[in-house]
């Protein structure tokens, strides 16, 4: 009884329950429909490496960019009470920069013109600069986050195309494909490992700095934070720069997957899934308190859902509609209105037998 009650009460670790319950429901559904969903097998891929495969591995693989983005999006949401809708365009820019550095201007270069790590770092710096641009608009000029990031949302893909003179560079170096695929000898998708590193880093940062407290304080009460010596402008700015870094990492994964780029398609609509991950994690999109783990779980829930739908051979065109239905159900169930009603109902149920006894 105690346990059930805590589901409906707000705050604390109960926030984690929302994505966990969603995961369980999806898992249960798949278990009933086809237990084969959970099969993980060792196989050999086209490159001749031994890798793990199965639907669960697909989820871990493709959910990873989203999980990385969810980290930054959670911080931006918490600090500014708004969302960055330019992350998809940002990934296009970061990816384009990485390819440009690797090819050195020749889109059919046979050899890498720069080490991958250098290209990656430059991509991250550029992505963080664009994050800083968003951050300045939101934090200093007090433009609504969605409006401010609409600028890059609109212009970002054109900028990405312009960086490579509208050419589509192709990287022939097989090592570059490791980041979006598998490293020989490691059967786990590299993307998942990258996401794991990101998650560990952010959890360490949250533990060993005051980022969490500052972000939440600014998101909840900016004026009071200022009177306590915080600089709300800087805190919000920082959140956007961190999201920029996440965008840079996701950009590497995205271009590595196909060893090339398609400016108009790469990471399309990923911002919406990233925002959804934050919401599914039970975090208020109006800012304030957040739970990082819940957001990351939320990201994997979304990928779980997408993969499930693919498994049942839902047409790619129809996918968003199915997704929307499931999302509506999840979001409504986790809304405060429903949880208040449920807890009221629960109290009533609990009271009725007591009355009969008395």
């Amino acid at each position, binding site marked *: 009884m105690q346990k059930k009650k805590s589901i409906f009460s707000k*705050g*604390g670790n109960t926030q984690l329950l929302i994505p966990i319950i969603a995961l369980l429901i999806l898992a249960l559904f798949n278990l009933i429909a086809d237990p084969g969903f959970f099969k993980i097998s060792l196989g050999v891929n086209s490159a001749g490496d031994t890798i793990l495969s199965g639907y669960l591995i697909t989820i871990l693989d493709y959910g990873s960019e989203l999980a990385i983005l969810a980290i930054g999006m959670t911080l931006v949401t918490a600090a500014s009470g708004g969302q960055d809708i330019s992350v998809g365009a940002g990934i296009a820019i970061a990816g384009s920069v990485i390819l440009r550095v690797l090819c050195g201007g020749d889109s059919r270069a046979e050899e890498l013109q720069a080490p991958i790590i250098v290209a990656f770092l430059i991509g991250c710096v550029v992505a963080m600069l664009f994050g800083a641009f968003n951050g300045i608009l939101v934090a200093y000029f007090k433009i609504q986050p969605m409006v401010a990031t609409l600028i890059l949302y609109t212009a970002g893909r054109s900028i990405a195309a312009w960086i490579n003179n509208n050419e589509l560079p192709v990287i022939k170096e097989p090592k570059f494909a490791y980041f979006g695929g598998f490293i020989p000898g490691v059967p786990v998708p590299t993307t998942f490992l990258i996401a794991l590193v990101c998650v560990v880093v952010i959890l360490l940062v949250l*533990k*060993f*700095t*005051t*980022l969490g*407290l*500052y972000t*939440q*304080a600014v998101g*909840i*009460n900016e*004026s*009071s*934070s*200022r*009177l*306590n*010596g*915080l*600089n709300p402008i800087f805190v919000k700015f920082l959140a956007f720069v961190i999201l920029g870094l996440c965008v840079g990492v996701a950009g590497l994964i995205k271009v590595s997957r196909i060893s090339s780029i398609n400016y108009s398609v790469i990471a399309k609509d990923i911002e919406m899934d990233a925002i959804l991950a934050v919401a599914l994690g039970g975090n208020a999109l109006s800012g*304030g*308190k957040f739970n990082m783990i819940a957001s990351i779980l939320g990201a994997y829930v979304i990928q779980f859902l997408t993969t499930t739908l693919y498994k049942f051979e839902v047409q790619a065109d129809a996918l968003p509609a199915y997704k929307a239905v499931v999302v509506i159900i999840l979001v409504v169930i986790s809304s405060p209105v429903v949880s208040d009603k449920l807890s009221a109902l629960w109290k009533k149920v609990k009271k009725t037998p007591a009355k009969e006894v008395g």
Partner: protein
Amino acid sequence: MQNVDFTLCEGEIHALMGENGAGKSTLIKVLTGVYPEDGEGTIHIKGLDKAAVIRSPQDAQKLGISTVYQEITLCPNLTVAENMYIGRGNNKVMNWKKMNDGANKILQSLDIPATATQQLSSCSIAIQQMIAIARAVDMECKVLILDEPTSSLDDNEVEKLFGMMRDLKAKGVGIIFVTHFLDQVYEVCDKITVLRDGKLVGEFVIEDLPRVKLVAKMLGKELDDMSEIKSENTVYDGDDADQVIYEAEGLQSAAKIKPFNFYIKKGEVNGFTGLLGSGRSECVRAIFGADRVIAGSAKKNGKPVKITKPIEAMKNGIAYLPEDRKVDGIVGDLSVRDNIILALQVLKGFFHPISKSQAYKFADEYIKKLEIKTASADTPIKSLSGGNQQKVILARWLLMNPEYLILDEPTRGIDIGTKIEIQKLVLQLASEGMSATFISSETDEMLRTCSRLVVMRDRKVVGELSGEDLTQNKIMSTIAGGDQK
């Protein structure tokens, strides 16, 4: 608001006075139909046989009651004439020439230096205010309500506005004038109605109510029965008791206060007093760097310091408990623990987080010390009562171990028991060597805690009282100022 009688005669300027929360705005909102009256009480208007029914602002307008609010509610990008006629006639078709001519005529008759086709935003604030009044007057109003119309005007503009009010008065319009400025009341008004705590204190002819009495009525203290309270606190008597901890010279902030000088000694409790809106909060906010400091210099322990941001004040050992607990104090969704450690944490810096166990220790220590009633240190602060929230904020600043603590209305909106606890605590801390500045709307609280009072009126320092002079009477007469003794 309960049981208030209010009478306004033709051709009279009637001041509505009272402190914030006394019910002035409520009365106005009932008169203009924003709030419905609850069935008890009636409104009678000349020319109507039965009681008037005012259920909406439109009803009020039809009955000839017009209101001009503190904030100008016109459209700055329309012309003067458009602003005067917008939302009035039932005509679907606009006769622009007729409208502009009509507007010009009114502007002339009221002597307003503006033309009908001018864009409103090109007029000064005072002219805009007058145009708002002209719009109200043109709606054939019998009753004109001016809700703090002078708060954003300078002296010259106020003079112009008063000229216009006198003209209207001569034309037989009854004017209700709400203001915080005592000088202005005595300049233009004929009668004063004083409200306090939602109740009527009385209606007075201006000649019968000298300033001191008006202040007494507003504060709810009759001059006769004011007992003088002597504080029995022990005074800090260290060797450095005479050392000036903080000193400000010509300090001025963007919050529209006149430059002021100020100092505080070690272990001293002093205070800023004055009516609400007199600038006392703005003064301490300037000291703490909460508002943008635009002039003046400050010294801490004799050394010049530059305090333009709260963090700089905190680094200099200055703490500030803000006036508005909800807006500036609590971080609502965060736990009591996080709220307590916030200031200290910010002071320690980004890379030195207070460990969870240490934070619990601090929180538990202060929950016990200040007797904060909370379920646990993890409870969100917003679910605590006002008094306990205030104690948490106080704990936040005490944890910082400040040399100089500024308390702006720490006792507002909290129960009497907690009020006394907080005052005792301040005195106790002062006796241990902390300096404190205390602001309260309740004069007896100030008398009980402060050994020196800086008196404010109309956003400037008008006096300083200490020792023998610290009496209710003296404070009131200083607040009232003018020719009163």
